[in-house]
C-alpha cells in the first residue's frame, strides 16, 4: 500500500503525532498534558505557515 501525502497534510500528521507524545511525556498532570500538546501542535503548524511565507518572500 502506498500513500502520497501533500507537504501540508504530512506536516499536519507529523505535528499531531509529535504533539501527543510531547504532551504526554513533558508534563505531569492530565490537564497540563492537553494544554502543552495543543501548544506544541499550534507551534508546529504556526512554524509551517511562517516558513511558507518566508520562502514565498525569498522566492520573489
Amino acid at each position, binding site marked *: 500500500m502506498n*500513500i*502520497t*501525502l501533500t507537504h501540508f497534510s504530512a506536516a499536519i*500528521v507529523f505535528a499531531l*503525532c*509529535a504533539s*501527543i*507524545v510531547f504532551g*504526554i*511525556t513533558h508534563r505531569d498532570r492530565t490537564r497540563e498534558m492537553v494544554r502543552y500538546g495543543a501548544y506544541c501542535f499550534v507551534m508546529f503548524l504556526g512554524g509551517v505557515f511562517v516558513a511558507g511565507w518566508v520562502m514565498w518572500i525569498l522566492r520573489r
Partner: protein
Amino acid sequence: MANLSTQKAKAVPTETVSMMSIVAPAVGWLIPGAGHMIQKRWIRGLLLFLSIVSLFLLGLAMRGRLYKANGGDILDILGFVGDVGAGALYLLTLANDWGQGAIAFATADYGTKFMIVAGLLNFIAVADAYHIAIGKKR
C-alpha cells in the same frame, strides 16, 4: 553537625531501582506505549502507541527508507539510531526487507523522516516510562 548531614541525606529524593524500572523501558522500546501500559497508564500508553505506530507505518506506506546498521556516513548512522528506536516495528520491517525507499517519489523522503522521528519519539516515551517506574513522575 552530624545531625544536619543526616537531615540533608534524608531530603535528597531516592530513586528506587526496581524490576519495573528495567522492564518498563525495555517493553516500551519493543512495543511503543507498552512501558506505560504495564504501569497501568492505559490511556497514555494507548495514545503513545497510536501516535508512534501511525507515524512509522505512514512513513513505510510513503515508501520511506529504513536505515540499516552501518559505519559509513554520519547521517546514515544517525538515521539508523533514529530508526532503531521504533523497536519491534524496526525489527519487523528489517526482517521483511521493507522500507527500501523510492527516490522517484518526493514523498518518500518525508516517509524516511517519519520513520526516524517515530523512533526518536519512542526513545522519549521510553525515558518517560522509566521516570514513572522510579517514581520521578506520576
